[in-house]
């Protein structure tokens, strides 16, 4: 209940306020076209970053894998049963005294690629 209704009459706000607000709110929202563009840009960025990472890391990964393979081959050759002598390819091996007759110990080293 208003006490001063005889002094302070209720005024009507100018029309169009809500429409103005709705337009302003709509203008702040990204359109679907923009959203699709953002998604494409994000995907492209991901691909470029992934390619850069691979270019940077790939050579060292390949080298490491190659060394591991060579070492594995050299060890397999060294411990192949039925051979009295060592036959080493892509590396060298030195037999170390093991102290036991049925145990052979080799120091195996690959040739660096």
């Amino acid at each position, binding site marked *: 209940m*208003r*006490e*001063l209704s*005889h*002094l*302070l*009459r*209720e*005024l*009507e*706000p*100018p029309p169009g*306020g*809500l429409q*103005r*607000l*709705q337009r*302003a*709110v709509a203008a*702040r929202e990204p359109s679907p076209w923009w959203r699709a563009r953002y998604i494409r840009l994000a995907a492209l960025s991901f691909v470029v970053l992934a390619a850069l990472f691979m270019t940077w890391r790939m050579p060292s990964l390949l080298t490491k894998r190659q060394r591991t393979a060579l070492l594995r081959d050299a060890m397999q050759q060294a411990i192949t049963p039925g051979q009295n002598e060592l036959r080493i390819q892509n590396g060298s091996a030195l037999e170390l005294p093991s102290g036991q007759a049925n145990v052979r110990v080799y120091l195996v080293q690959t040739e660096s690629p």
Partner: protein
Amino acid sequence: MTLRKEALYACYQRLEKPLYNVLFRQLWQREDCQDLIHDTFMRIWERQAGVNEETLDALVWTIALNLAKNRLRWRVLRKHEPIDEEAMQDFNASNDGGDFLAERRVREALRKLPNAWREVLLLSEFSGMRGAEMAEVLGIPVGTIASRKHLALARLKEYLGEHFHA
């Protein structure tokens, strides 16, 4: 706790008229009031993620009153005064040709009131809020609301004299 667009628009429809009535009696400029109400709701929309719909009305009042205070402060600094006659034309136009002199007297009396008293008086007249709600919006104790309203009414009576009850 994210504000929905529908809740924002519903709040605008609910509070536009009371806000306009309170703000017009402080700024006395139609366009300023419109802009201020618009800015209030846009500020709220810009931080929609942190807005609780249950306390939306109180937030709207708080922001709108703060913006009005800033606007009045800006006018004092710039020595800017709204054009009286234009404002009164707006006032009368929306009152179906009410008494120009009576409106002018009320306006002068309101302008002479301290801002804090006028704010409470206008809020209690138009906002539809209870004392506790007004206290929360203005950040003052409930007792202060009652005393400011009492003082504002007494001063208004003093300024308007016989016209107070007219």
